């Protein structure tokens, strides 16, 4: 079922394979490893299902040509089931899909909120291997939800954690702002809740940035329209999930609303009565 993607790398329409290793990430998240040589760029995602109800886009957190991993946070029935998987259980994967982060020379600042930190690990590995300076901000509401810290520490980069109950006790955006005031950052790479990214963009002035978006997806391949953003219909599954500053600035829905399975708008903040 393999085929070549446009970059010439191996792409899998669908592969159903056994989980070979599970690493718990604190109480509410897990990393699931597979034996897979598929060629994933940092930021790209897989459509994942266990055939028990639902299929979701999940970013790849590890890919070294032999092992591939996804990191999942328990946020509901689907991700809860995934977090409870054991080695030997099957998952069905297709992809990788979507646009990757594009490494920019110079000091990189990576800002991850919650599970958004997962794709940033793959990016951090690549940036480090290219020899650039890398600072990572890993934020969560409570420290128990901070994940993948060990992986980042192992990369020998400038790694900071923050949560309401530990570390710098700042929001990840506030911590990023403090770093930006001291360091000459060439590009900011962020992944996490959309409101976090919305807050982040407001402090970035003229800095280049690349944000990875999470929106509801049904097909993952650009035809169902579920993840199309307003006003130009850019599809998070094809033109995204990673959008650069020029693309983000054109969005009218960013930080305002997303869409649910019906296509109805779900506002991030309560709307004033009209």
């Amino acid at each position: 079922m393999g085929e070549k993607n446009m970059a010439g790398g191996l792409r899998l329409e669908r592969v159903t394979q056994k989980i070979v290793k599970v690493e718990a990430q604190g109480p509410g998240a897990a990393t699931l490893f597979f034996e897979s040589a598929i060629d994933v760029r940092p930021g790209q995602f897989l459509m994942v299902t266990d055939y028990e109800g639902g299929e979701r886009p999940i970013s790849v957190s590890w890919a070294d040509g032999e092992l591939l991993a996804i990191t999942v946070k328990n946020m509901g029935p689907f991700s809860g089931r995934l977090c409870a998987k054991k080695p030997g259980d099957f998952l069905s994967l297709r992809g990788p899909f979507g646009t990757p982060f594009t490494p920019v020379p110079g000091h990189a600042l990576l800002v991850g909120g919650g599970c958004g930190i997962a794709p940033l690990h793959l990016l951090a590995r690549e940036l480090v291997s290219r020899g650039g300076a890398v600072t990572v901000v890993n934020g969560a509401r409570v420290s128990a939800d901070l994940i993948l810290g060990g992986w980042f520490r192992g990369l020998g980069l400038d790694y900071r954690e923050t949560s309401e109950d530990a570390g710098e006790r700042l929001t990840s955006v506030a911590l990023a702002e403090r770093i930006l005031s001291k360091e000459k950052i060439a590009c900011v790479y962020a992944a996490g809740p959309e409101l976090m990214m919305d807050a982040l963009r407001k402090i970035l002035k003229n800095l280049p940035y690349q944000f990875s978006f999470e929106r509801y997806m049904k097909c993952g391949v650009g035809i169902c329209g579920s993840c199309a953003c307003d006003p130009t219909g850019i599809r998070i599954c094809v033109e995204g999930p990673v959008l650069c500053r020029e693309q983000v600035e054109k969005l009218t829905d960013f930080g305002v609303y997303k869409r649910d399975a019906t296509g109805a708008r779900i506002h991030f903040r309560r709307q004033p009565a009209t």
Partner: protein
Amino acid sequence: MVSLRTRFLGRELSSPLVLPAGILGMSYGSLRFACDAGFGLVTSKSLSLEPRRGHEGPIVARFGGGIINSLGLCNPGIAAGLKEVDEFSAVSGSPVMVSVFAVNRGDFEELVRRACDSSAAFIELNLSCPNVMDEFGIPLAASKELVADIVEGAKKASRLPVIAKLSPNALELPAIARAAQEAGADALSLINTLGPGLLIDTAVRRPILAPCFGGISGPAVFPLALKLVYECTGRVSIPVIGMGGVSTGDEAVQMFMAGASLVGVGTAVWLSGAGVVAEIAKGIWEYLEREGFSSVMNLPKLERGNG
């Protein structure tokens, strides 16, 4: 001068390529995306009276001839859906076809009435989605009588042209097409997805699609679609939007020769990317230029035997 501009039911279109219902079309952004990709007429998702979440995933799977899918008619409902259409029309001069979906004449009439209060240019009656049969039984489009009844009701309720979208899963499709015309349909859309079909994941011995079956589309259905368009245009005098597996300019030209007035392109947007719309348009244009025709409206139709 060669041009892709064409006329359809009294409207001028910038291209004879149509975004079919169900592909993109969920929001004003996705309508605009389709428009920017080169479609001359864009269709909304099939709108029902109430919002529908559609099926849980997986809802699409590939195979050697294309894809099967079972989105399950997810849509935000007629009220929110028409707002998206109006928002699109506020920034675009491109006409929109509003697709509506119900299971009885009364609801279709209600949907049509509401669509007539929007900026829609045309209304398409989705009589043929194969993915909700468990819910609704055999597609309406399999019955001449039901098709005629619903089209008649929709026409009475509508100030706009009404297009009936029919199913390939009926041996007597040409007769059903004829019945739709006699009931007043202004045009037909042929064909909706085939089947549905099934694909199994042998590693876990489960159907790949969560809803088990999914409508078949893509290159697989092209020769069937072409034949049905050819047969039906031999039986009706109203225009036909031909769709089903068209992925190249040459296949679009085949559709025109088989009798289609416009050509829909759906699954190719996945299999070849959104750029395929411009590619197909370019292929049609080059054919017209090379063969000395000024417009798809002048393309000669395939000769008909005594069939």
